Every structure is written in C-alpha cells, then in structure tokens.
C-alpha cells in the first residue's frame, strides 16, 4: 500500500464515523475516483457499518420483551413469588446440599429440644457434637460425593472438548496436507496425460504429413509422366509431319 493510500484509508475511517472535514472529503473523493483499492475499502467499511446498525436494530427489537420480563419478575416478587437471586447465592440456596443441611440442622434442633424437655439431665455437649457430626456427615456425604462426581464429569467434559479441538485442528491440518499432495499428484498425472496426448497428436500430424507428401510426390510423378507422354506424342507428330513434307516435293517434281 502506498503512503498516499495509507493516509487516505485513515481519512476513510474518519469519513465512516462522520468526522471528516469538507476539505478532506474533497481530497478523498479525488483520490477514490482514481484508486480502486481505496474505493473498495470505503465501500466495504460502509457495508460493515450498515450491518452493525442492522444488528444493533435487531438486538434493540428484543429489548422491550427483556425489559417487560425483568419488570414483571420484580413486580411479581411483591405478590410473594420467588425472585431470581444472583447466581452464586441462588445456586447455593437452590442446591441439594443446603436443603439437606437445613433439614439435618432442624432435625437435630428438634431432637435436642425434645431431649432437653424430656430429660432432667443436662445435655451431654460431647455427645450432642458427635450426633451433629454424624448426622451432618451421613446427610451430606452422598450429596458431596455426587457433587464431586459432577465436578469431575464437568472437568472431563472440558478436557474432552479441548482434545476435540486439538483433534479437529490436527485433522484439518492433515486434510490440507492430503489435499495438497493429491493436487500435486493429480497435476503430475495430468501433465503426463497431456504429454502423451501431445505426442499422439504430433505422431498423427507427422503421419498425415507423410501421406500428403507421398500423394504430392505421386501427383508430380503423374504430371511428369503425362508431360513425357505429351512430349513423345508431339515429337512423333513433328517427325511424321516432316516426313510428309519431304515426300511431297519429290512427288511434285
């Protein structure tokens, strides 16, 4: 790209954003009238701007329903409906672990209260602690196990996806290589076939030329033979004419 074109393409960007001065606009118009490359660059940028505006318009069309949905979700929370909480807290609140934990704590609390009410003895703190630990452990172990399995599964899926991308790249590279090799082989084969065809053609031309040459030679020979025959006839005619002329004066005498 020439230095001039580089400057002009910078001006084209200003033109697209609507910040080019009138004076520069004239300079740019003069340039694009003679430079097809810059003219094309300007057209493509104009089309991209149009596409951006179209895309923005489509996104904007979906804005009203989103706003309505949002407002509805907020208003409905007034009527006692559950509102969507931020992701991290929502995930925790909705998770099985939290529900089980709450259930376990409630059960223990009820058990503890019942024990306190029914038994005259003071509660055994160590026993209570062990009971809580056992209860929590039994209620959470399975869920934690399941959660860990899910995490491992997610990690494995991610790793598989990474491998898939690598495999895809490798296959694409291999495919390109194969296509290149195939193209080279096809080209070589095509060249050999072309050479063969050309050799055949040359042979045919040569044969035709030999036949023509033979026919011309024969025609010349025929012409020569006819000429010789005509010449003989002519000589014979002359001889017989001379003989007749020589005989005639004697007869007159």
């Amino acid at each position: 790209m020439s230095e001039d074109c580089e400057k002009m393409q910078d001006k084209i960007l200003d033109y697209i954003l609507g910040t080019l001065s009138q004076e520069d606009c004239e300079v740019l118009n003069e340039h694009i009238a003679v430079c097809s490359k810059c003219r094309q660059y300007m057209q493509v940028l104009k089309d991209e701007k149009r596409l951006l505006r179209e895309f923005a318009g489509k996104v904007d069309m979906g804005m009203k329903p989103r706003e309505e949905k949002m407002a509805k979700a907020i208003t409905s929370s007034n009527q006692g409906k559950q509102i969507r909480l931020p992701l991290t807290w929502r995930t925790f609140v909705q998770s099985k672990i939290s529900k089980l934990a709450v259930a376990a704590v409630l059960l223990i609390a009820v058990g503890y209260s019942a024990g306190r009410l029914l038994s005259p003895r003071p509660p055994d703190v160590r026993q209570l602690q062990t009971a809580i630990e056992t209860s929590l452990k039994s209620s959470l172990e399975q869920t934690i196990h399941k959660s860990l399995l899910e995490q491992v599964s997610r990690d494995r899926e991610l790793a598989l996806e990474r491998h898939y991308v690598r495999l895809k790249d490798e296959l694409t590279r291999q495919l390109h290589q194969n296509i290149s090799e195939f193209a080279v082989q096809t080209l070589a084969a095509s060249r050999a076939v072309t050479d063969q065809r050309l050799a055949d053609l040359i042979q045919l031309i040569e044969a035709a030329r030999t036949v023509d040459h033979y026919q011309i030679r024969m025609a010349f020979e025929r012409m020569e033979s006819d000429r010789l025959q005509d010449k003989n006839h002519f000589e014979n005619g002359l001889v017989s004419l001379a003989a007749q002329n020589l005989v005639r004066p004697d007869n007159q005498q």
Partner: protein
Amino acid sequence: MSEQSDENLVDASRTGDNGAYAVLAKKYYKSVFIVCLGMLGSIHDAEDVAQETMLKGLLNIKDLRDSSQFGSWIIKIARNHCISLIRGKKRANKVITQKSKPQEQMLIQYEGLQQAIEKLPEESRLPLVMYYFGSESVREVAEKLNLSPSGVYQRLKTATKELHRLLIKQGDVI
C-alpha cells in the same frame, strides 16, 4: 401518566415498593445491558448479567445514598459484576468458552459479526457497542466512560479498523 422522578422511585423502592423499582429497572435496563454487552461481548452473558445486576440493585437499594444517582450507581454495579465475571473466566483459564445458548433465529445471520465484536479488545469494544447498540452520541459515550470526545473517536476508529480486520480473517467480508 406523568413520569415519576428517579428520586421518588428510589425512595419508594427503599420502602419495599417493588413496583417502583420495576419502573426504574425498565428505564435503565437497556443502558445496563449495553454496558454488559460492551464489556462481555456476548448477548447471552449480557442478558444474564443485566438481569442479575437489576436484582442486586433491588436487594441493595438501601445502600444508595443519593437517590438521583440511581443510573450511574446501577451501571457501576453492572461493571463490577462484569469485571468479576471476566476475572472468574480468566481464572478458570477456559480454553473453550461455554457453549453458547441457541441463538435467536433473527440473530443467526449476524453470528460472524457477533464473533468479531466479541474478539475486539474491551477498550474499543465498549465505545463501539455504546455508540451503535446504545444509539448514544460520542459526547454521551465520553461522559459515561469518563473519556474525552476525541478519545472516544479514536477508540471508535480503532474498533472499526479492527472489526474489519477480524471479519476478513473470519472470511465474513461483506
């Protein structure tokens, strides 16, 4: 119906009037969505974060000291939310981005353009998205991003040039 001021709506929201907050959310949803789209580059991520920002705003409305500043306050929440999401993604070091949700039918034809926008550096993507998608003037973008108008023009220029390069690289030349 006369339009209520932000101050009145914020004050009503503080007293637990979710209807008043819904009006505010509706009013500022687009601005929040545009900032999220500019920072995250993905429409679906922007939708999720915009929604979560509005709900976070509802939960924390009592923390807003100046009722007239709801607009800038909610945008700040959205930006912080986006930043933590970007950091989280970086920390996770995801080679592959999350599988995108199925595109809305009407946006499928702009998939190439959307991908190119996603790949733009954030500093030029945000002004570009605000300018084209938010239909904001250069002056408005400059004010919101705390930049000079010429700085915004420069970023828009860089974004236009880079977007063109990315579209060519993707083979999506128009």
